[in-house]
């Protein structure tokens, strides 16, 4: 089984050995290396920016019209841009990408601990100078960092397009700083998704089962978000007075899902309730959006979900039977 030209004698290792701290980085690095090679994730990332892509296409054609039709086209572009609230566009882009972020989270995290459980990999990790905290932090970062990157790239692309194409239409003043707000939104959103999937993954011995449970959790909790949307429609759909008829507690149900809480974070940080997609409807329509929830409510739900994910994982991952 061994090569005839190989030197088969055993030699000790006298090369460098790092310290016993920061072993979590070795785990995270391996996870990230593995994930970035998954081409399907990059396809999903590109697809998650579909709203931004459509906006860019609309802008591109309006720009071309402005160039080709002279002052009349210029007027049409200015009229369209007047209806655009840039922070709402970032909010919409983030909100519409949620389902694909969920799929990415699923791919990145469902098997992360579950498959280790199946293969007894904890024995390998914990027999090295890794602690349970190293293991969990490494696994969490291995989900969090790629997810963060994949959430930020489409946003950054849209922002760069705006900065280069609409600087003269007031984009720099109105939205130049928005990228700084999008970073914490993506950080908090990715942290939440990574924590939840980490907890779910730790509960099972098969990545597939963990994935199904996570998907179930996502869909069931999303029921509240969809339910509130439908309630608003039944109330008449639009207008501040109609929204005001719905009890705030019911409206807050909109945010009681994995998607919803991320949208709540985005609304709080961007300071907007949002508006109709593609700048449609104008100011009247904006009032129909679910109001921004209180920061305390948002922070509590976010913290509770993150803590629950970590607590489950912490409890499930144990310094296993090392021998016999």
């Amino acid at each position, binding site marked *: 089984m061994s090569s005839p030209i190989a030197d088969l004698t055993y030699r000790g290792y006298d090369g460098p*050995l790092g310290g016993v701290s920061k072993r979590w980085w070795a785990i995270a690095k391996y996870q990230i290396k593995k994930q970035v090679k998954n081409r399907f994730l990059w396809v999903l990332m590109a697809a998650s920016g579909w709203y931004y892509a459509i906006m860019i296409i609309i802008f591109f054609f309006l720009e071309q019209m402005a160039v080709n039709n002279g002052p009349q086209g210029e007027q049409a572009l200015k009229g369209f841009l007047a209806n655009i609230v840039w922070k709402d566009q970032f909010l919409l882009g983030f909100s519409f990408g949620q389902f694909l972020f969920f799929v990415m989270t699923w791919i990145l995290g469902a098997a992360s601990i579950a498959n280790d459980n199946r293969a007894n990999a904890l024995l390998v990790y914990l027999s090295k100078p*890794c602690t349970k905290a190293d293991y969990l932090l490494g696994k969490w970062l291995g989900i969090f960092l790629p997810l963060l990157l994949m959430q930020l790239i489409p946003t950054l692309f849209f922002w760069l397009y705006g900065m280069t194409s609409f600087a003269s239409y007031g984009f720099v003043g109105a939205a130049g700083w928005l990228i700084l707000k999008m970073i914490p939104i993506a950080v908090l959103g990715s942290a939440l998704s990574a924590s939840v999937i980490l907890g779910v993954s730790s509960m099972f011995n098969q990545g597939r089962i963990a994935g199904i449970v996570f998907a179930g959790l996502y869909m069931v909790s999303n029921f509240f978000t969809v339910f509130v949307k439908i309630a608003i429609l039944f109330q008449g759909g639009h207008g501040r007075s109609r929204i005001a008829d719905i009890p705030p507690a019911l409206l807050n149900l909109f945010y009681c899902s994995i998607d919803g809480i991320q949208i709540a974070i985005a609304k709080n940080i961007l300071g907007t309730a949002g508006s109709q997609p593609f700048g449609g409807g104008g100011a009247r329509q904006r009032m129909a959006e679910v109001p921004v929830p209180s920061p305390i409510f948002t922070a509590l739900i976010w913290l509770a979900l993150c803590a629950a994910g970590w607590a489950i994982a912490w409890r499930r991952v144990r310094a296993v039977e*090392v021998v016999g």
Partner: protein
Amino acid sequence: MAVAEIRGLTVQYGRFTALSDFSVDIPEGCVGLLGPNGAGKTTLIKTILGFVKPATGGGHVLGADILREGPLIRQRVGLMPEQDCHIPGMSAVAFVAYAGELAGMPGNHALRRSHEVLEYCGLGEARYRLVETYSTGMKQRIKLAQALIHGPKLLLLDEPTNGLDPRGREEMLELIRSVSHGKNVNVIVSSHLLPDIERTCDQVIVVAQGKLRAQGLIKDLRKVEGAPIDVELKEENPKFMQALQERGVTLLSAHRNIYRVQGKGLPSDVGKIVFDAATAVGTQVRGYDLAQRSLEEAFLEVIR
């Protein structure tokens, strides 16, 4: 010099005491850890690795404190667990290199050494295969490879021949013997298979009911009290027995043509009497050696 010094260790799981005031110095070399199920071997190894916090007592492994320096100990020690374990979705070379990185090796060093260690463990040509596709014997070898990758000074091998066919077992024992002799690696082999311990180890530690029952060189443990001698004749000869008794040598047992005898004085004095008796009855002595028990007999007596 001892690789591990354990002092007054008491480990409890709830009301159950797994180790009770346990003290031992684990010497350098290849040491067998023997004991019946539930004796406390597992707990001892878990404690050495820093996974279990003892109620009282403490100790040092390779100079590191077992109470405070668990990760440092695990960096200096290589563990080959009994259970099948691997990281899914990895080829053997990636798996072993990753194990090295987990132990603190830089990535390039880990990868280079992964190739070397896999060659050494006889997996050179299968190193690019996924570990999931390995046979039981290959999985045992890769567990040894991941334990060796960072050049540990102490190897803990738990049932290293589990699930191996006779040839695989021979090869694994040969590997263990080779790594533990002249390579500056100390080895502790925990096994229920006494022949495996006899083949690989020079010394044993016997644990039973959470206490140290015996420790020492295997050859000392196998010695029989009173230093009797086993005499092997060419063929069975009742007259030889009589001749021995006439010369004041006590016959302890006779099994076909092998006689266990005990006389007064040094073994050389007894030897003279034995050969004299053999000459007198006209039989040929084919073997003459100090009587030894099997390790199994010694083990059973110690834990009784």
